[in-house]
């Protein structure tokens, strides 16, 4: 054993606060309710090309023909997302009815990674209109498909929330959900790392899940990225 070993052993001798065990027991007895129960309160409109509108509250789904399949897929993915089992959506969205500026804002909002947040001003800069933060806010406020296009990941530059179509409380819960849902999950037996929600990731057993902070970290210990969900292209 050398000095580095001793230094590390000393450094890692942390004392837990004496009240920790009691607080943990209290948390185990009263776990916070999940978001999955809210899934029934979301309603979809869909065209042949994809989801055109997502509403929250009273209402019903509206779709015909192939649109019904999109609604089914969207609902399934939304339930998984709210349950912390999905970090991305594959259901197509049809933004055919929105103006060009809003379309660019929504496209840029879709690039904000799961679990990340971005300011209105930064989004305005990214679309090439650095002084249009307020217009960006209006465009996001009129987002026809919240959650699927993650406008909840856009907040004010001072770190406070700002307007959200489904209310500030739901925005907080969605951001908290994304804060506590892992993005990259590796399978211990196949040594493949996927994005959470990939069909392959969903087959990994409870004991075989290993979370990574980046694809590079996973590669450093012998895991390769999934060829289906391509985490290298999408993870932050």
């Amino acid at each position: 054993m050398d000095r580095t070993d001793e230094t590390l052993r000393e450094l890692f001798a942390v004392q837990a606060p004496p009240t920790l065990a009691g607080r943990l027991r209290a948390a185990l007895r009263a776990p916070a309710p999940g978001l999955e129960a809210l899934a029934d309160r979301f309603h979809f409109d869909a065209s042949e090309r994809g989801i055109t509108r997502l509403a929250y509250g009273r209402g019903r789904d509206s779709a015909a023909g192939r649109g019904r399949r999109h609604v089914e897929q969207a609902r399934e993915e939304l339930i998984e997302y709210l349950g912390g089992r999905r970090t991305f959506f594959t259901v197509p969205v049809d933004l055919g009815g929105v103006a060009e500026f809003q379309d660019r804002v929504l496209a840029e909002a879709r690039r904000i990674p799961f679990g990340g947040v971005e300011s209105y001003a930064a989004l305005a800069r990214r679309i090439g209109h650095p002084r249009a933060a307020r217009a960006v806010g209006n465009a996001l406020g009129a987002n026809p498909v919240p959650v699927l296009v993650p406008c909840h990941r856009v907040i004010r530059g001072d770190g406070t929330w700002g307007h959200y179509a489904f209310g500030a409380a739901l925005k907080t819960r969605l951001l908290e959900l994304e804060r506590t849902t892992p993005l990259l999950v590796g399978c211990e037996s196949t040594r493949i790392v996927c994005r959470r929600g990939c069909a392959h990731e969903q087959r990994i057993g409870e004991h075989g899940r290993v979370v990574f902070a980046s694809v590079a970290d996973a590669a450093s210990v012998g895991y390769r990225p999934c060829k289906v969900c391509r985490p290298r292209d999408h993870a932050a």
Partner: protein
Amino acid sequence: MDERAFERLAGEYAGRLYSVAYRMLGNRADAEDAVQRALLKCFVARAAYSPRWAVSTWLYRALTNVCIDELRRRRVRDESDLDVETVSEQLPRARVARQPTIERLDVTRALATVPREARVLLALHYVDGLGYGELAKIRGISVNTVKSQLRRGKAILKKALEAGGHDGSD
């Protein structure tokens, strides 16, 4: 495993889990939050617990999964131009005491230069004296990878300590 048995287990391991989380995340608030989240995940999934796993392996796997995702999130957050303190304040988390002055700042800083995977293994190895086999099971990697990561992590740490004027030699 029933609820009472799990509660006893949580009480027994809380301190050690906290120490590992603290060394991975660097502050008390995040460490306590991570321990709470990891234990809640295990509590919900306790029916799936298999006795072929040591309890410590099961709990440490859950804890490292939570801590590593927190480190990923920080990396994303550090790249943004937002007031991150305000963002954090608005999200719920475990209530904890104020963080005291950080001791041995140079070692903590040196540890931050070690790659994440090696840092996690160092924390597990030195906090609880976990062996190579258990570390391999916790992180889902081979024993040889554990050994090479620990060796590499220690070498980087030693170099950083020497560069900072701290005597980390034999």
